[in-house]
């Protein structure tokens, strides 16, 4: 990590880093103060657009552009939702940011709220994050007590309330329209788009949903300018600091901050200490469990940013890097992954509801030694019918309402295609255990 000073995790591990006092003594809320008092909507949006900040939840949609979709002259109230429903397997960065530096996230929310003229914002936090929810509640209390939230914040005429809403532990509620439904008190079934949330979101009003890490970047952009942010990392098209979540068969799993565009091998070998027991690397899932797996030879020189990973046939996603060494049984890994998705499918759309369970039924037979030769092609066909072929050039391309269809079918498809001989070996060799 030579030459790179952590930005988002700078204060990590400092005593009291979660307190307002600590945050204020480290230039905290300066950016929010200037945004609220001295900047208008378009200036904030322009700065964030200039920075090239892409959504950190996984889709990588430019944050400034998303904010600019909020209709200026709408008489409806506008809402900002901070998506803290971090549920993607292999991803554990947002909880870290909330735990250690909640005020950074809140400051980002204040700026984003000002940019879209919102006076009521929500933090939709995953139900399992009990501690994180308490940390946020405490931080919000501190803000209310110090006129950072509430009426006339920073002695301006601008009002903002933030409410922490705990989810009930469904993966699908991390999808923005599923989240909005859940926040409205309904079943977390994603909505059909269009209309997009920017036009009709929470309670039918214009709504922006941003990831925790996206919002945590915002104060730094306002403080240092868009150009400064665009200069971070190898690729100005996909810039900024990034939290990489490394898990699986590495010596030192954890969250590492580095610039976007860091080589994947650097992250795995230099930062995370390499493969456990110095085994050989077999495969890497680069961007959370929804991204197609990459074989060991596909990651040489791979830069971790949105366009580069996409060019390699996978997705940067949430940068949840799951490392698998040579001891990994890919059939079991695939089964494990498919089981997660079958369990989390909301069941609204036919292909996803029926297809995900069909997949695990086939994989279940495989692991019991009851697979058939035609099952391999059948699995590929089923994934096509849920999520469509892997074609990243179009973005979302599945046959379901929300991207969950792709999220299940692309990784399963990639595993079956890339490790087909392993699946075939299950047909011929006696399965033990």
């Amino acid at each position, binding site marked *: 990590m030579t030459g790179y000073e952590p930005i988002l995790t700078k204060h990590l591990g400092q005593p009291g880093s979660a307190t307002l006092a600590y945050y204020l003594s480290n230039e905290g809320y300066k950016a929010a103060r200037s945004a609220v008092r001295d900047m208008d909507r378009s200036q904030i949006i322009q700065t964030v657009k200039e920075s090239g900040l892409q959504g950190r939840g996984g889709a990588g949609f430019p944050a400034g552009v998303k904010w600019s979709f909020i209709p200026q002259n709408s008489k409806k109230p506008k809402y900002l939702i901070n998506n803290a429903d971090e549920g993607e397997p292999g991803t554990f960065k947002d909880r870290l940011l909330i735990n250690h530096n909640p005020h950074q996230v809140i400051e980002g929310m204040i700026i984003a709220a000002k940019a879209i003229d919102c006076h009521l914002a929500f933090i939709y936090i995953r139900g399992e994050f009990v501690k994180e929810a308490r940390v946020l509640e405490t931080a919000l209390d501190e803000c209310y007590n110090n006129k950072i939230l509430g009426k006339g914040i920073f002695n301006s005429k601008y009002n903002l309330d933030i409410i922490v809403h705990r989810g009930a532990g469904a993966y699908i509620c991390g999808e923005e329209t599923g989240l909005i439904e859940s926040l409205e008190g309904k*079943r977390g079934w994603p909505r059909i788009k269009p209309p997009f949330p920017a036009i009709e979101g929470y309670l039918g009003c214009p709504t922006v949903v941003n990831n925790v890490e996206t919002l945590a970047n915002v104060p730094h952009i306002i403080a240092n300018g868009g150009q400064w942010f665009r200069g971070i990392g190898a690729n100005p098209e996909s810039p900024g600091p990034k939290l990489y979540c490394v898990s699986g068969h590495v010596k030192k799993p954890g969250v590492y901050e580095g610039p976007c565009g860091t080589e994947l091998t650097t992250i795995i070998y230099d930062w995370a200490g390499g493969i456990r027991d110095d085994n050989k690397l077999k495969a890497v899932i680069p961007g959370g469990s929804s991204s197609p797996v990459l074989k060991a030879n596909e990651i040489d020189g791979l830069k971790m940013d949105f366009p580069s990973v996409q060019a390699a046939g996978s997705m940067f996603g949430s940068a949840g890097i799951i490392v698998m060494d040579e001891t990994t049984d890919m059939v079991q890994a695939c089964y494990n992954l498919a089981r997660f998705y079958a369990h*989390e499918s909301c069941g*609204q759309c036919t292909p996803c*509801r029926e297809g995900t369970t069909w997949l695990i039924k086939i994989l279940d037979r495989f692991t019991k030694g009851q697979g058939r030769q035609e099952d391999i092609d059948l699995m590929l066909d089923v994934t096509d019918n849920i999520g469509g072929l892997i074609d990243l050039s179009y973005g979302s391309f599945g046959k379901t309402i929300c991207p969950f269809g792709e999220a299940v079918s692309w990784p399963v498809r990639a595993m079956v295609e890339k490790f087909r001989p392993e699946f075939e070996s299950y047909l011929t060799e006696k399965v033990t255990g």
Partner: protein
Amino acid sequence: MPLIKIDDRELEVQAGDKLLAVALAAGLEIPHYCYHPALSVTGSCRMCLVEIEGMPRLQTSCSVPVSELPPEKKVDGKFDMVVHTQSEKVVAARKLVLEFLLLNHPLDCPVCDQAGECFLQDYSFQHGNAHSRFIEDKRVRANEDLGSGVVINHNRCIMCTRCVRFTREIAGTGELYVQNRGYNNKIAVFDSVPLDNPLAGNVADICPVGALLLKDYIHTTRFWHLSQTPSVCTECTAGCNITVDAANNKIHRIISRVNEQANGHFICDYGRYAHNKYVEATITSPLLKVEDSWKEVSWEEAYQVIKDQVVATGGGANLRALASPVYPNETNFLLANLVDTVVEKKSLALLPIQNGDDQTFPAGFRISGDKGGNRRGTEDMTRKLTVKPQTLFRGDVGVLLALDGDGRTAIDGDVEKLLKASPFTVILASNMNKFTERANLILPVAGPFQREGTITNDRGLVQWLEPALQLTGEAKPDWQVVAELGQLLTGQASLYTCAGDVTWKISQTIAAYSRITRFKLGKKGQFVQGIK
């Protein structure tokens, strides 16, 4: 207006309309399950996928609005949207959705009540595969009673959620919900809160497969044995359109028929189960009361008795009549004509019918409290002659000619006095009830679902009442009996050979009905003059 092309058809449509709705309105078929014109769009079944040029992903036609493109972007220089419903991609996608839907479906069509009118059956036949690649065991769940006479067969359910949306959006009661998640999804009611609203039966109508069933209908017949008669419900003044499904002169069920001018897409359960009320005690021949018991007589004898009684009670001048809002316009019109011809002063009143509270549901569906289904029409037919019931029992009271109220008669003080004052009461009826028991002579006429003619709902919509059942025994059409009574008492020959003839006569006599004839009404009806 945007110009779109669906396969080979060019259509000019309203911007903002949803593609599927536009296609269906133009008579094009795009297979669909979760879409229902009266419910919100969810786009979840994925059956209505179509290919739209310029969009890489297949789109659910139910959710895509038609919009106008700027001139330079139009496809082929003129189209705002070019849609393919039969392209290779679409055909393949449809096949696969059907394969998914049938994974756990029991394929028990031979014992399923929906067979023959099942969209899963039809679409599988038209668009699906003959064989499934699914070799795993199918999921099996037990049937459950949801309440209000509705049973769910979970194994056949395709999770279109029409029923859930119905209870939320139309009934406003929201008893149904989706329980559990994903593969374990199932339609359920909350613990100890059963499906309980007067519109509940509609969930079985809108279920596109054989999952939601009415206990009343289950395993009683096969769909293809039914003759379907498009008719109108007369249980209240709303005039909901229904289809009466009968076999062997027995009604097996009543389902709603779409008419945006009247009920929209739904009917209430009072109307849905109305036929069950009229099964018992059907009158099959003229009945004369002799010493407190009924004696079957022939029509000739019955008419002779009436003639004798009229003479004995001071002639036609003392005649009294009660028109009934449950009978069609034709019958009431003829009765009014009879009174007008025979009696000099006004001596006709409307039979009082039980009244309750109106019920209106969130999406606008209404059940009228007035159970006299043809109240407005009856008033229109008799307006010139009607008096308040209390004037009828004054003076010399002769023979009372009354139409029955199908068991809904409110026998109030006035009616009671009239019945007591009348020396001889003739009631035209189809079923025995508290009112007909008071008669001296009952003439058997067409009952509910046997009547023919026009009825006018409370908003002035005139509709044709199509008989679904044949008359039983000696019973005659109600209009015909009144016409024959007219002939009997006036000596003038009846000109009418069918109910439609009387309708024509009404159009010649009553200004508001001048444009109403049997064939102009069609299946949707027509408003009386002066109503938009």
